[in-house]
């Protein structure tokens, strides 16, 4: 219960920051100023928006399928929020440290699709319906390259436990029960003879342990953009065509929940990308001889120092990825639906399959 409340609170905080950042970043990239009035530099704008939304009338269209309509936002948010349960925040802190975390995450986040379809269908609105159909088609398609990219990371790490994957990517690896005698080699190739087990830092991140995972990371990042309906894959809510997509009929608190779910999804996919490919809560600074930067910036596992450092590194890496998501939104035009499917099925999926194959071979080299 405590983990639930803490995660929810942290998530709300991050989403508020993200909503504000989105407006400011968008404004700066378009030579505007963004919000300036509410609070210093407009920093309370997101809070004001939420308060406004909560005061609004809760409108349920007369012709809507009321049960589906009312249930959909809760289901969508619950599906996304449940995904946070398995994300390790620090070496010692993970809301639910289950052994099949990756599998659980993929499965629970897929429930999102059902919620979207419920919202679109229940609204009894052509735009909502079209938006939901597009959204579902897109998410289901992009789960394949995303899943394959995650699979290649899992193959290299030989684990479905997010915490074990996290430990493997840093200098603290041997402290994890079951990994006491594991070794990290530069680029994962033992034949090179450079042992990075105690060097840690960026050299043991998954994208360096097995450089093929860099390709997997790019594939996963592109697919995750599509899964969270972000530009340039935002045809499900293309403002200029569909008003707002599946949530066009929602107002007030229900809209706030959908909005929250959307931003939580962004945060979740970025967290997963960081945990699987970019070293999780591990520091990027390596130990260089006597200058033990990695140990200094990791803290001792289980103590306050490690919680602080772990959350700091995890969040800063996540925010870099989130900033990239925002920048992509304001840089690239929206893909047409056929281009979207072309990219998924004819480009990303074959490459992801090849990456899975190479990752398997790489794993053989690592032993």
């Amino acid at each position, binding site marked *: 219960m405590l983990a639930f409340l803490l995660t929810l609170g942290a998530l709300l905080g991050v989403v508020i920051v993200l909503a504000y950042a989105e407006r400011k*970043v968008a*404004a*700066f*990239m*378009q*030579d*505007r*100023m963004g919000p*300036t009035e509410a609070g210093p530099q407009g920093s309370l704008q997101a809070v004001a928006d939420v308060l406004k939304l909560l005061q609004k009338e809760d409108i349920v269209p007369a012709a809507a399928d009321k049960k589906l309509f009312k249930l959909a936002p809760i289901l969508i948010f619950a599906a996304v929020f449940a995904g946070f349960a398995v994300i390790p925040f620090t070496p010692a802190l993970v809301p639910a440290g289950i052994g099949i975390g990756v599998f659980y995450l993929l499965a629970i986040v897929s429930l999102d699709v059902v919620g979207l379809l419920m919202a679109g269908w229940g609204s009894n609105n052509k735009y909502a319906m079209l938006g939901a159909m597009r959204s579902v088609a897109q998410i289901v398609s992009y789960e394949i390259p995303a899943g394959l990219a995650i699979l290649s990371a899992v193959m290299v790490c030989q684990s479905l436990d997010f915490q074990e994957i996290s430990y493997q990517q840093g200098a603290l690896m041997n402290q994890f029960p079951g990994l006491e005698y594991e070794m990290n080699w530069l680029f994962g190739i033992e034949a090179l003879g450079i042992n990075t087990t105690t060097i840690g830092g960026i050299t043991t991140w998954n994208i360096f342990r097995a450089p093929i995972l860099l390709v997997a990371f790019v594939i996963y990042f592109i697919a995750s953009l599509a899964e969270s309906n972000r530009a340039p894959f935002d045809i499900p809510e293309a403002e200029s065509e569909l008003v707002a997509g599946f949530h066009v009929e929602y107002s007030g608190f229900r809209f706030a929940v959908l909005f929250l779910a959307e931003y939580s999804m962004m945060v979740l996919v970025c967290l997963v990308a960081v945990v699987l490919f970019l070293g999780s809560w591990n520091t990027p600074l390596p130990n260089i001889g006597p200058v033990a930067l990695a140990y200094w910036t990791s803290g001792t596992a289980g103590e306050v120092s490690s919680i602080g450092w772990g959350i700091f590194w995890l969040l800063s890496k996540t925010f870099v990825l989130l900033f990239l998501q925002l*920048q*992509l939104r*304001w*840089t*690239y035009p929206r893909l047409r639906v056929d281009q979207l499917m072309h990219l998924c099925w004819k480009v990303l999926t074959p490459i992801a399959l090849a990456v899975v194959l190479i990752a398997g071979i790489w794993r053989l080299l690592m032993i």
Partner: protein
Amino acid sequence: MEQKAIKHKTGFWYVVKSLLSGLGLTWKHFKNARNRRTPEYVSDENYFKQPDGMATLKYPYEAIPVPDNGRYRLHNEIDDCIVCDLCAKVCPVNCITIESVKATEDIGTTSDGTKKRLYAPVFDIDMAKCCYCGLCTTVCPTDCITMTPVYDFSEVDIKNMVYHFTDLSPEQAEEKKLLLAKQQEEMAAAKAAALAARKQG
């Protein structure tokens, strides 16, 4: 002229390059968002040369200066006004309302030396009707009615768009009218007396 086929560049690396250059462009704008456009006067040589930074002007707090010959809200300097009514007559939209009362005593001169002979109990300009043609300023013999650079004067109540320029309070105006009536009565009486005297003589 010989036509050449346009070759479109294609290929993986070309696409990657163009995607990265797009990101570079937005990044450049993001980085330059530290700078702000300065509210330069139109004649400043930097007026058109501010490509970097945010273009937004936080209007109520800052504004680009108005040119010297900007023609916005009307102002009447009532001390210099001889209440000749020319502006009201020339106004194409009849936005100026003037009532005049002859002065019974000497009320001084305007700043350019013209003798004032009339009071103006009413000198109203309805800025909601004004079409900013500036004709009133050109006909004014004493240059007392002018156009100022003030352009932000919208009001919630349209009645507040009527500007009152008279320097007389209603009581004073009433007093001046009474004085005039009394003077005219006296003059009429004097005239009648003079006429009667002539008839007798």
